[in-house]
């Protein structure tokens, strides 16, 4: 069975970025610490993946201060939501194909 990666969005198709997108899909907004804890990655690693998603306009980051501490609220954009929706549809189709081929 040939794996067709071209159909899947290469920006989302990475462990950390996919995890970020799925977590954000389920939340209104999340902060950096929460994502770091849930995905179990280093600060630098998470920052670089967030930057990549932000450049693609899949997420937006709103910086603010609370009790003089910097806070970053991260959320999915409409474009990001659509891209993740498309990604999961393609993934589902792929897995369905694999399952059909196995039965044959």
């Amino acid at each position, binding site marked *: 069975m040939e*794996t067709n990666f071209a159909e*899947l969005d290469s920006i989302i*198709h990475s462990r950390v970025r996919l995890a970020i997108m799925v*977590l954000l899909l389920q*939340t209104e907004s999340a902060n950096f*610490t929460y994502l770091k*804890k849930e995905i179990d990655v280093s600060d630098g690693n998470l920052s670089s993946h967030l930057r990549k998603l932000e450049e693609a306009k899949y997420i937006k980051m709103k910086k603010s201060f609370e009790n003089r501490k910097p806070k970053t609220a991260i959320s999915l954009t409409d474009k990001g939501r659509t891209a993740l929706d498309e990604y999961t549809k393609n993934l589902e189709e792929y897995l369905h194909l*694999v399952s059909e081929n196995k039965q044959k």
Partner: protein
Amino acid sequence: MDQITNEQALEVIKDMIERRKMKHNQTGFYHLLWGILISCAIVAMYVLVGSGLDHLIVYSWAIFVVGGAVASFVYAKRTYEKQGSSKDLDLGLSSIWIGTMIAMFFVAFIFPILNAYKWHVIYTMVCLLIGIANISTGILIKQKISLFNGILWWIGSILFLIIRNELVFMGVFVLLLVVNNIIPGFHLYNLARKQNGN
């Protein structure tokens, strides 16, 4: 390396969804809060009836209901700050319980003042409202125990219309509180602590 196969992508999606699900067992707080508050309200009611101060019952209910609303609001806000995320389900659960409290304020304070019914009907109405909150919570967080508790509260609401003996009345209510709120509350709270690694 961050490269993944399509099968691994599916695992990542499943894993992240499961992680979010775990957070919702923190609703044990609401069970406990309401179990304790209503227990206090009943003790206060019993003392007031015994002292011939029946007219103050509605005020004691109002204090506990407003106290519960404030505590729930503060808890919801602190949970958001601690978790670092918020979601529609969190908002839904908070809304159900805060909405229940507002309805209870009417049922246990406003309506009795307006002489809509006698004070003992408060029990039946309160049982119905807590039943709705428990069943809605159970459906949202997929916890059978909460669904079961909601049904028991509704059965309780019928019992309170039938029972006439005051002591039996109080006993049944306390039993319902322990079985429906205190025990499941501790269970859900401990489950959340384990799942969150605390």
